[in-house]
């Protein structure tokens, strides 16, 4: 079963997304912070990471950088709110090797397609 790591500091988002992908036969692990995500990445391999940019503690961009240092082939999709000041962070995420990003509020089937495309191919 493909494995997806969901990193978000909002419990509702984490739990909803986990539930959503578990129903689609995906093995989901969740982390509530960048720190927790890095611990998980050190221990086990995930096929894809869904990573929120805006988090307390180390933010999504920093987390992305560390994940890539640990595993340069890691596939990461960034999730972000639609705020102009975050436009700049997209480019940064691209440079750091994120494969895609998606804006909140998002179309659920778009998220579904984006994630399943990476996991089922």
């Amino acid at each position, binding site marked *: 079963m493909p494995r997806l790591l969901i990193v978000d500091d*909002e*419990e*509702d*988002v984490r*739990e*909803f997304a*986990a*539930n*959503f992908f578990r129903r689609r036969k995906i093995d989901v692990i969740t982390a509530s912070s960048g720190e927790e995500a890095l611990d998980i990445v050190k221990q086990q391999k995930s096929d894809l990471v869904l990573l929120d940019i805006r988090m307390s503690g180390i933010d999504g961009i920093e987390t992305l950088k560390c994940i890539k240092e640990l595993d340069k082939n890691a596939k990461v999709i960034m999730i972000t*709110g639609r705020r102009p000041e975050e436009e700049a962070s997209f480019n940064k995420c691209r440079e750091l090797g994120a494969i895609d990003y998606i804006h*909140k*509020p*998002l*179309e*659920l*089937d778009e998220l*579904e397609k984006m994630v399943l495309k990476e996991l089922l191919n």
Partner: protein
Amino acid sequence: MAIDYKRELETAAKSMILVHEPSTLIKMIARMIVHKVKVDHAGILLHDKERDTYVLTVSRGTTGLKIPAGFARMDADNPLIRFFRQHLDKKLFDDGAIIYENARKLLIRNIGPDAKELLKKAMYQMEIFKASVCIPSYFRDDLLGLLLLGSKGRGRKFSQGEIDFFIALASDVAMAIRNAQLFRDLELELQEKQSLFIHITIALAAAIDAKDHYTHGHTARVTALSLEIAKKLSDNNKKRFDDKFFELLHIASLLHDIGKIGVPESILNKEGPLNEEEKKKMQEHPVLGTAILQPIKELKDAILGVKYHHERYDGSGYPEGLEGKQIPLVAAIISAADSFDAMTTDRPYRSRLSKEEAIKEIQMESGKQFDPHVVNALIELYRENKI
């Protein structure tokens, strides 16, 4: 236990009258649905007009099932939105609500290939949201929002009574949202009108300043000072002045010299003291201003400030020789501010006084030319370095 839906609806309707903020109202409704009908989750998508998209704004229910507010949206091309916007709901379902179970039965019937295709896709959207019921909220023909409901515990079905209850709620919500929007639009329009009015007044005031070369910027300074004095008086007063008074003073001080439009420029700009005849002409400006503004009924109270800003507290002023408390407060305030500004700016026939000298002079005229309360407020402002 059966729920008395009629009573719940009445309660909801009452809250809608009390709560004007649509977002609060919608939250209340989602909470009520989850508690009373015991649905595992309920979400409400609201139309964002600007982006033409429907955003999940309110969500209630079990963690893991409820979709966090602000997380999801449906664009105009989303099949579920298209389904309702094309009015297939009314064609395929009597009451307009999509009940997932019933919709599935429709798929094997002959409803036309296009409708079937769209219904299928719409149902897939409901699956994604784990919704077993989807209820549209319309105002006239506009789809304002969608109410998405999860399932009831232990696989139980919704009764028709419950569905009717949701539909009634959804239409009430649409009405409430619409009302709130109209209310906001009206407020905006009112603000725009007020701002237009003030700007036109400022333009009129600029017309006077343009004619009177020596008093450049005078109107703006008198207006600012008058408002400061009024603030001070209001702070010192037992009862604060209301916004209306400030508005009135604002307009009156902007227009206090409008009558100078009718005074020949040769007099306004004369280098040196005026002779008796010229003085008489100059002294007509409050009455001229009053005549100019008279047709504007809405300015009735502000006109008092224009007409009487050259009256003196001891009764020796013009045009009517009013004294003491007969002089409207607006006029008394403008009078002091006007004199203070005249003293502290250069004129062709004399150079200006320092602020300290001007304050001293005004203080000496307290109870003679000026209202003592106004003088005190002006002195306080000076001592506090606010002027």
